[in-house]
């Protein structure tokens, strides 16, 4: 299971940021060809991002590109220039309204991957839901292709479409966040939260992150490197949580070896969901390697 607590947007026209984004150690990077890049710079940014993908270093980050929307003339060129390099883990697609959009993208990716000799299906899809329609169709979108890795509710565009605006309390997004979580879990994909726009409001970011973590989100998009440690801290389990999770996993392992069903830890029944949650805690703490949690 890949951690996606933070995915950092890097403007596709800023070589300085593109080269150094990984140094801030987010879980993922989003090289942005969409909103960060003016129309007359689309070609230049695509070339720059291509060169950075060819030569750059990204540490242990998951590397994605936000392509231009499928309602524009740029998205195919974006894919054709970047996917064949074999370096991309995924593409983030803006304004996904319905399952058909995902299917179109899936087909285009398969064609390019096949031509480039890359395993078909390797490039994952991260869906930005920036309209009421997109939110309404979340489950269908998330299940439209096995490539879909995450759904991400929008911020500004979405609230505009809802005929409201973003408030510091986030009242207008509360219902949306809850519905996205249910759909994402039902579809078996990650739910990633929208960006927190006030980059100097560390306290506000912490509060919002605690809130979305409690709702069940897996992480948040990030627009400034200084936001990364704050979000990671919220998502990092405490020493006590880790200790308890270790006990539960050990007890469950012992029970399985002895052929027992349920066991007790500190006087409480431990059943399958509790074990699952404990394994998840250890993963978030960076104490479990990918693929070992079901061993």
């Amino acid at each position: 299971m890949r951690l996606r607590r933070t995915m950092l947007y890097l403007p596709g026209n800023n070589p300085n940021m593109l080269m150094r984004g990984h140094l801030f150690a987010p879980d993922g990077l989003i090289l942005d060809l969409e909103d960060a890049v003016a129309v007359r710079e689309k070609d230049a940014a695509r070339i720059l991002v291509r060169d950075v993908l060819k030569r750059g270093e990204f540490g242990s980050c998951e590397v994605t590109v936000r392509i231009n929307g499928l309602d524009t003339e740029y998205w195919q060129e974006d894919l054709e220039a970047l996917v064949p390099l074999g370096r991309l883990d995924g593409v983030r697609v803006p304004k996904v309204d319905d399952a058909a959009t995902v299917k179109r993208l899936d087909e285009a990716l398969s064609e390019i991957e096949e031509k480039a000799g890359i395993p078909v299906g390797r490039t994952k899809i991260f869906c930005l839901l920036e309209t009421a329609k997109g939110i309404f169709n979340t489950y269908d979108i998330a299940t439209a292709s096995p490539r879909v890795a995450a759904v991400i509710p929008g911020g500004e565009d979405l609230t505009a479409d809802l005929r409201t605006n973003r408030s510091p309390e986030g009242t207008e997004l509360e219902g949306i966040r809850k519905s996205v979580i249910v759909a994402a879990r039902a579809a078996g994909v990650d739910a990633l939260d929208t960006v927190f726009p006030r980059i100097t409001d560390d306290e506000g970011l912490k509060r919002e992150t605690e809130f979305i973590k409690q709702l069940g989100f897996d992480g948040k998009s990030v627009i400034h490197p200084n936001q990364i440690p704050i979000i990671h801290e919220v998502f990092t389990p405490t020493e006590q949580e880790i200790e308890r999770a270790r006990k539960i996993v050990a007890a469950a392992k012992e029970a399985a070896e002895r052929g027992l069903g349920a066991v007790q830890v500190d006087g409480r029944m431990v059943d399958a969901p509790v074990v699952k949650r404990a394994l998840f805690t250890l993963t978030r703490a960076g104490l479990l390697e990918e693929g070992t949690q079901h061993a």
Partner: protein
Amino acid sequence: MPKNILGREIPEFIEGYGKTQPFMGANARKPEGNRAGPKLRATFSDRTSKLVPDLKAAIAASGLKSGMTVSFHHHLRNGDYVVNAVIDACAEMGIRDLTLFPTALFGVHKKLIEHIKSGVIRRIMGSVNGPIGQMVSEGGMDVPVVLRSHGGRPRAVVSGDVKIDVAFIAAPTADAYGNICGSQGKSSCGSLGYAFTDAMYADVVVAVTDNVVPFPAAPVSIPQFYVDIVTTMESIGDPAGIVSGTTRITRDPLRLLISKYASRLIEASPYFKDGISFQTGAGGISLAVTAYMKEAMKKRGIRGSYGLGGITGYFVDLLKEGYVEKLMDVQSFDLEAVKSIAENPNHIEISADWYANPWNAGTAVNMLDVVILGATEMDRDFNVNVNTEADGALLHGIGGHQDTAAGAKLTIISQPLLRGRIPCVVDQVYSVTTPGEVVDALVTEYGVTINPRRKDLIDACQAAGNVPLVSMDELIARAHEMCGPTDPVETEDRIIGVIEWRDGTVIDVVRQLKRK
């Protein structure tokens, strides 16, 4: 041509400077003989006021003549009115061929260019930067400038290398009998540390103030028995340029990342324990390092002994909150520091001699555990350049760079790997300011690069497990890959600047830029 121990070509004699002593190693040169002293003078009870009406009267009374050496301090920084006013007055009085011996010059002093061109100023011993630096670099002065550190300058005075004829001391507050106070008055600047040696060793000392108070002025920075003449100006400086407002910690993510790594290095070092002393300065990175260190000190229950150097409000908070016991302040950077030095007996005003002069019986930097410094360039041998830019032009003074590096047990240079497309690591620095033998580590956004002679630090960082180590070779290779090769600086043979090591030996020379 003879070379010094670092392989730099230093002529035996430099026109306008004299015979050279090549740099032989950080602590190699031992002084001989006695201290130099100023002229004896007597003042009796028939003279109870030293006040004269204006600058010209003060200059006349001081006996200043063409060809003499005048000194100034830089505590009023970019707000200073005194240097320009004194030189303007000298020009009007027909005085020429002066040697200017400031502790530093700032942008506000670019007006001096006209006096250099007209021959009022013949020579500058001190840092030049900005427009004056560019002019000197292009050969605009007949005599090379001499760059000395904050400790090297008082050493030169005390040893007699430099004789100050008249010291003009900008005084935020003074009485008519010459007691000077730095922390009171509308132009207050806090510590007057850089002016102390000048007051003690100049033949004539003139206090220039815009706030005359009844005798005796207190608290006293420089006492009456050093001061010969007091005069007034309507204003000695612009408060907005003298001290900054509240110094804020940077929010630049790259600088914060570098600061975090630097702080982890300090935490991993053997010096991170009760009694730790440090100098971190006022730069963006340094202040953030201090903030991270404070967090770590809090977490591990560590209390420091003293903070040294240029003092900011952030250090004042450390003192108030008990993270350090004392502040030793040679220069106060902001209003909080000025206020604190006036009120808090644990905030001590020290002179440049006390701070950094290698030739006395023990200087403050010798007791320092950790210092964080900057650089424009650093090379494979960990030699550091702070004086010249990548294009070969004079850029910065030395400040306390050499002194704190030589004194501290852990000298850290913190710097982004790239400024624009200019890398901070190179095969060989263009000018050497501070030799690698006194530099322990470089911290960039790519991690911590430790001088291989500090095996103990490498081991400590590895044991700590959270300090990303990167070798100098790796770092230089990365810089080459990202920036490509740079054109070498093209120069004439003529030497326009002499960089002295703090002991008066010549560590490097700077040559005139070829016209493009």
